[in-house]
């Protein structure tokens, strides 16, 4: 990044500005910093200072069939969503990025729409639609619903890398005798991998965090971690829920960091 220098503001303006921005950042970060450490509080209450530090809430989390079952459900739904959304989204981005065809704007708007539409409305529509198809209360139904929400992220991230991709490379590969599939895997995919990887991580995180669709569509067999947390929060705030939240944050962050590291290596 090149240094960007603006004419410096005088001190009497800079100080209050920095103070205000500091407070804003505190608003963004502090609630999390205040809430998450309570998962290691040895007492079942929610204020500082702690009487002691203990792993009892994490123990309660990992020893409970309800919680670990929910975690496994969430992981398998998120993995399946990642595969479906990343595949469809990547292909779509490749097809749409430079194409000129009638109604292109409409198609692009449609592709991004699930990001902006109220999730409750999408959930209602899918719930009524899935009823006669027998897709409510099924794994497949939840994965489809989550993929709908995750796909726009994949399209956006992959499109961003594709705009820097030189499509003449594909022509060159074809001239050298590579099939379209071969050219895709050997030439295009390695170059757009950072975008695909970022999209995959977004898909995973979207599904792993999603609760509204689950409230509409999931059955007892798809009791996910967020749903378990949501029911818990409406019932009784228990430090185990905070331990669950910390677990959730750790899993998502680990994935993000992994994706960043992989992207840097390329």
């Amino acid at each position: 990044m090149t240094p960007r220098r603006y004419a410096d503001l005088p001190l009497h303006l800079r100080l209050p500005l920095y103070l205000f921005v500091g407070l804003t950042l505190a608003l963004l970060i502090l609630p999390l910093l205040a809430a998450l450490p309570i998962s290691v509080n040895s007492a079942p209450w929610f204020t500082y200072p702690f009487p002691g530090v203990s792993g009892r809430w994490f123990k309660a989390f990992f020893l409970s069939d309800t919680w670990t079952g929910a975690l496994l459900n969430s992981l398998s739904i998120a993995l399946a969503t990642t595969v479906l959304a990343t595949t469809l989204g990547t292909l779509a981005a490749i097809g749409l990025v430079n194409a000129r065809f009638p109604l292109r704007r409409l198609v692009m708007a449609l592709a991004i729409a699930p990001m902006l539409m109220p999730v409750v409305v999408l959930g209602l529509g899918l719930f009524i639609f899935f009823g006669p198809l027998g897709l409510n209360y099924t794994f497949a139904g939840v994965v489809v619903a989550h993929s709908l929400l995750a796909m726009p992220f994949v399209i956006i991230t992959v499109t961003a890398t594709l705009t820097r991709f030189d499509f003449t490379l594909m022509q060159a590969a074809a001239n050298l005798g590579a099939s379209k599939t071969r050219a895709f895997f050997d030439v295009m995919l390695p170059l757009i991998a950072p975008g695909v990887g970022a999209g995959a991580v977004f898909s995973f995180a979207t599904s792993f965090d999603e609760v509204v669709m689950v409230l509409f569509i999931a059955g007892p067999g798809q009791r996910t971690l967020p749903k378990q947390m949501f029911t818990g929060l409406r019932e009784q705030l228990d430090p185990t829920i905070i331990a669950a939240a910390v677990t959730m944050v750790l899993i998502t962050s680990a994935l993000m960091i992994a994706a960043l590291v992989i992207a840097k290596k390329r």
Partner: protein
Amino acid sequence: MTMKSVTAAVPALCLLAGMASAQELTVVSWGGALQEAQTKAFMDPYAAATGTKIVQDSWSGELAKLRAMVDSGNVVWDVVDMDPQSAASACDQGLLEPIGAEEMFKAAGLVEGGLLDCAVGTSVYATILAYKKDAFATAPTSVSDIFDTATFPGKRAFRKSPVDTLEVALMADGVAPADIYSLLSTPEGVDRAFAKLDTIKGDIVWWEAGAQPAQLLMSGEVAMSLAWNGRIADANSNEGADLGIAWSQQVRGFDMWTIPMGAKNADAARAFIASTVTPATNADLAKYIAYGPSVAAAAELVAPDQLANLPSAPANSEGALAQDGAFWAKNGDALNAKFSAWVAQ
């Protein structure tokens, strides 16, 4: 991220999920301390004895969920814990298997009111007044004290449902327990109940899940609350709370098992319900939560120290009102609509 490992992992996970389908049973209850107690007293022993894999879910009594399942012919719940009015109403609507007429449940020796057309009672609970002992100089003595903001100031919590709320409002307005339901069947009686509620609306905090009252009381958000007695006893013994209970004018109800119409594992569901109304198992629940047995023969199997915490103990029964499931089955829709509009105003 390598795509291959991900694509390989998904079918493996699906397989894992599929393998578990030996004999499954999905049991749905109200969550929290009640469901934990039921798990210990009912679900775990049944799973151990029969090798059934019990999947649990919780709900908050919203019949629409069940209706959506039955209407679409895709019923994923096998056994559902209901209150009598939901059970009666769901039964009317054809949402439940008519198990009350079956011999094995008729022969179980349930106490009066414990067997409905579509539901089998599992335990007896009461809606009582719970309060923070340190909040008042003189302790409240009856459920109607929740309307007495002069003597007992502070926020108070009610369940966000007309059931019990309207009854308590009329009792607090001086109506005798025997006249409550005939009065509530008239528009004037309903208006009178809402008028009584209007007098304290500004002080009301609403709860939806059974574990909330203890939580609200312990955190100091409310000073008193209508609550299910077992949840309060549970908070006192397991969470170090010090909450008082005013038993007088308790509204007594049953927890009941039902089987949704078209449940996929209806036979296992019957076997499971039957196992919970054998006297020994039925009496076991009182060990884990302060709800009384629904089977007459189980009453003598409950230890005396546990008995004192049960709604059925004579000392606790003064002015008790038995909740009328049939009344609510008939008027629930209309009163629910009126109630939720009133709350949102």
